[in-house]
């Protein structure tokens, strides 16, 4: 599963993307965030404000309850500030 990072989340993690293989019990976006947060200290800090993390699963906006079953790409990012 490919994870994409944007904006300050990308900067804090110091990577644009990574390939991960979460265990079977990681079934939702929220689970994925919790699991990624345990990777290392930088990740724990980056995901600290968990409620601020937005997501897209396979190119569709998602929320923390959205399933990631079978997903190829999950994007994680802060609240959007376009327009």
């Amino acid at each position, binding site marked *: 599963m490919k994870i*994409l990072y*944007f*904006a*300050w989340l*990308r900067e804090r993690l110091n990577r644009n993307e990574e390939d991960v293989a979460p265990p079977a019990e990681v079934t939702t976006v929220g689970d994925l965030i919790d699991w990624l947060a345990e990777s290392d200290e930088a990740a724990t800090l980056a995901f600290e404000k968990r409620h601020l993390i937005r997501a*897209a699963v396979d*190119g*569709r*906006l998602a929320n923390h309850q959205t399933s990631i079953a079978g997903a190829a790409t999950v*994007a994680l*990012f*802060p*609240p*959007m*500030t*376009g*327009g």
Partner: protein
Amino acid sequence: MEVIVTADAFDPGEEANAFMARTAGAGAAVTFTGIVRSKAEDPILALELECYVELAESQIAAILAEAARRFSLIDATVIHRHGRLVPGEPIMQVMTAAPHREDAFRGAQFLMDYLKTDAPFWKKEVTASGERWVEAKKEDDAARERWE
């Protein structure tokens, strides 16, 4: 209906003319242009716009379709830049055309409110003393909610 997500500069007036030229039968056209702003008391050197391009294109297309349906738009176009911009440069432009003015206005406002909260762009301000990410505004969430 057109979505242009681009790193290139665009000419706001030229785009508005091209939009109106291809929109026969409209009595009303509204153009909104967002411009990089630098406050005198807190100047910025540049605005860096990060973008998740594929998602931006599909999200904007979906918002456009919804706007067209709600406000009976004859046509609508969104142009949104990413990359490094300097104060005074246009960031983005929304154009709507409708038989009557109220729909053209409301369609453009709807598009703007949704773009602010639902299009994957992130703004970073570059100042003489460093860089800072622009925070999402509560008002933007509130503005969007009025259409729910």
